[in-house]
């Protein structure tokens, strides 16, 4: 484990330098003001100490220019902090286009991670240095929070929806992964290790883990295993909507309105199919609530993404594209 020094945690992501610079700028500026106030207090308290028991000092009630000064100056200073804090927040929150997407499921008390190539890990996360990684995260039970101090990122992981976090590791090493939202008895045991690896080493690690097949090919197996293919034909003649070239598209739903077919919508449609029925279809699909795990849902989503219109994330060496080896020749036959 790379260790931090006394007053600075390990800095190992594209954001950590910017974060620390702002943090320490605040420490210096706020420190100067705080020390200034402390000195003024002590100086006044000593210099103007009571010299005789009956002393009546000059009765100063207010000084308007001084009052205005220490209303306006802090306000301007605060607005500056707000602005820079917001800029940093956008940098932290908005993933770049070319980020590789991994899936994370939090549960009491472990982190389960699935790579698009098929590798799965628990309480460990292997990532290549220099590549932006985006994690799509959901929880199987209570609220957790995914926190990598060395990367200066944190995001709560909620049941019933996906939240995302992204980072780009800049330094190879091993870093803490913590759960930062109290989640029950073994909350402090819900910790893991992030392995930021040289890209070449990482490729080797991926290849070793890909034996089971990619996430989307596992998803394809699930697609048949759960009987999805019985209704969701790829010729448009099935009882359910055609899921080919669906991912990321806007879907009109019956009763008016539309929805973007993203991870959250697909997940909802599996667990609660009646919630938003696609226009022109009837309420036929049974719920899979209780029969399917969060990991299997993620595999199905990965499959639907893979048969989607175009690669959603830009050219990335680790995303399995539709039509490449993992997918080719596996289109479900129409029944």
């Amino acid at each position, binding site marked *: 484990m790379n260790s931090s020094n006394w007053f600075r945690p390990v800095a190992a992501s594209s954001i950590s330098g910017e974060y620390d610079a702002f943090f320490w700028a605040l420490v210096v500026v706020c420190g100067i003001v705080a020390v200034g106030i402390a000195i003024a207090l002590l100086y006044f308290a000593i210099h103007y100490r009571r010299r005789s028991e*009956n002393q009546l000092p000059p009765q100063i009630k207010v000084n308007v220019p001084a009052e205005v000064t220490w209303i306006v100056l802090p306000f301007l200073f605060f607005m500056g902090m707000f602005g820079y804090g917001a800029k940093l927040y956008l940098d932290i929150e908005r993933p770049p286009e070319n980020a590789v997407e991994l899936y994370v499921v939090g549960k009491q008390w472990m982190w389960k991670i699935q790579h698009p190539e098929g590798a799965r890990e628990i309480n460990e996360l292997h990532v290549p240095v220099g590549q932006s990684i985006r994690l799509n995260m959901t929880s199987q039970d209570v609220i957790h929070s995914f926190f990598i101090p060395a990367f200066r990122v944190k995001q709560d992981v909620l049941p019933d929806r996906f939240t995302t976090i992204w980072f780009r590791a800049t330094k190879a090493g091993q870093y803490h992964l913590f759960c930062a939202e109290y989640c029950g008895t073994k909350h402090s045991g819900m910790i893991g290790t992030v392995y930021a690896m040289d890209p070449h080493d990482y490729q080797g690690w991926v290849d070793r883990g890909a034996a089971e097949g990619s996430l989307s090919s596992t998803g394809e197996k699930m697609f048949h295993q759960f009987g999805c293919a019985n209704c969701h034909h790829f010729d448009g003649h099935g009882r359910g909507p055609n899921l080919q070239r669906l991912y990321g598209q806007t879907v009109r739903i019956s009763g008016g309105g539309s929805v973007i077919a993203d991870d959250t919508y697909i997940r909802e449609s599996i667990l609660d199919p009646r919630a938003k029925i696609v226009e022109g279809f009837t309420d036929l699909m049974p719920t899979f609530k209780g029969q399917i795990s969060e990991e299997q849902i993620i595999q199905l989503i990965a499959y639907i993404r893979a048969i989607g219109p175009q690669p959603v994330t830009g050219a990335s060496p680790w995303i399995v594209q539709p039509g490449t080896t993992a997918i080719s020749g596996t289109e479900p036959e129409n029944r």
Partner: protein
Amino acid sequence: MIGAVEVKSPRSYLDSREGILSWLLTTDHKRIGLLYVFSITAYFLVGGFFALLMRLELLTPTTDLVSPETYNKLFSMHGIIMVWFFLIPSIPTTLGNFLIPMMIGAKDVAFPKLNLLSWYLFNLGGLVTLYALIRGGVDTGWTFYTPFSTSYSTTYVVAAALGIFIAGFGSIITGLNFIATIHRMRAPGMTWFRLPIFIWSHYATSLIFVLATPILAITLLMIGFERVLRVGIFDPALGGDPVLFQHMFWFYSHPAVYIMVLPGMAVISELVPAFSRKPIFGYKAVAYSSLGIAAIGFLVWGHHMFVAGQSIYSAMVFSILSYLVAVPSAIKVFNWTATLYKGSVSWETPMLYAIGFIGLFTIGGMTGLFLAALGIDVHVTDTYFVIAHFHYIMVGGTVMAYLGGVHYWWPKISGKMYPEALAKLSALTVFLGFNLTFFPQFILGYLGMPRRYAAYPEEFQVLNVLSTAGASILGVGYILPLIYLIWSWKYGKPAGPNPWRATGLEWKTPSPPPQHNFETTPVVNCDAYDYEAMKEELELV
């Protein structure tokens, strides 16, 4: 103005009636204030004991003193008891109850019987929560986050929540009582802008009591409905939304932060003028800043949820509003400091606490600015940085102010002086112990140690050991006043009506005051802290 104050009145509020029932059935605001002192001291000792056990457990990285289950219950019960059964009632129900009628020249609060009822509700709530504790405790944290609290925890969540629910009615009644009292019971000549700042701040606090506490009550009821009746409100498995709970909880609990700190500011705004012998600098700015804090304080709850999954745009709105609410707090700090300028500053114990408060509150407030900065918050939220931040406000702020206020008004409450040298020593002990306990936690948080961890990686141990060492010093600093104040109740030197030569109406009546506070209703003809107008009476030159 008021004659014969040198002679101790034979019928002070303490000995006008005798027997335990004369206390348990009293409607005298001063006696009710003392009943509250008794209750909150007991809760403080219980909550403090839990803190001590937590700090001992955290001496080592592994869980060796207590199990993780027990540790989780310790921090949950520490938070629940300290927030709802010590900090929230601390200053308003003790010093506020005792002083508000006297400061405005009234005989009592507007609704004396309701005042007594509030004490009973508070203690009934406390007993229900203690029942939860004795039966096996609760492990949800004081924040009761869903769906953990409603569907996963196997501990006594409903009993703990019910206790808080009941005690909340005590808060609402106290707030209502203070608002009515301040509006309707002021002595002739006591206009709004002649009120001591103590009253302004308690008025602002009371508004929050009345407006925010019902939201907490509703939220806790919903927890009960979901947990017992399985009505889906917060748990997604039942069709609910877990983040909705966070919105509702913080919509109360952020204003509740100001319930805890505004009365502390109220006390400091009395101590600083009294020990500088000057009017508070910029009276109106300080008075209005209390109302400003109360108003804007209702609009910043989302800053607890910057990484909880809300939209980045609502996060920005909450961030900017959080900076706005910092402005009135900054105004107060600068005005307190300016009050000392060219003053006649004396270094008695209450002033030591006041100076300590200003310093610690400044650090607490400034680290709040860090947390309001969106990007900075991401890394340090839910770590020990947040723990340190709010303990600087709640303990470095509110508890220091409470102790300072108790020392300042002790002569009025008991009629006796506390031992000054020992009190100064304990004030210094509290200040040093506090900083040693909580300053290392800022560093721990920045280094990445999450809060609510029973076990932690080894590299965090040194700072945790420092923190535990500080906590034991802090404990000594808190026990000392408990001992010497009780001692001085019997053996202290008689105080006289106005030992500090201060200006408030409470100092124009004997110590301890008679049952109805004043022999005759006072007439007010000068501003608060007007030493110039009172210089003959106070024998100042």
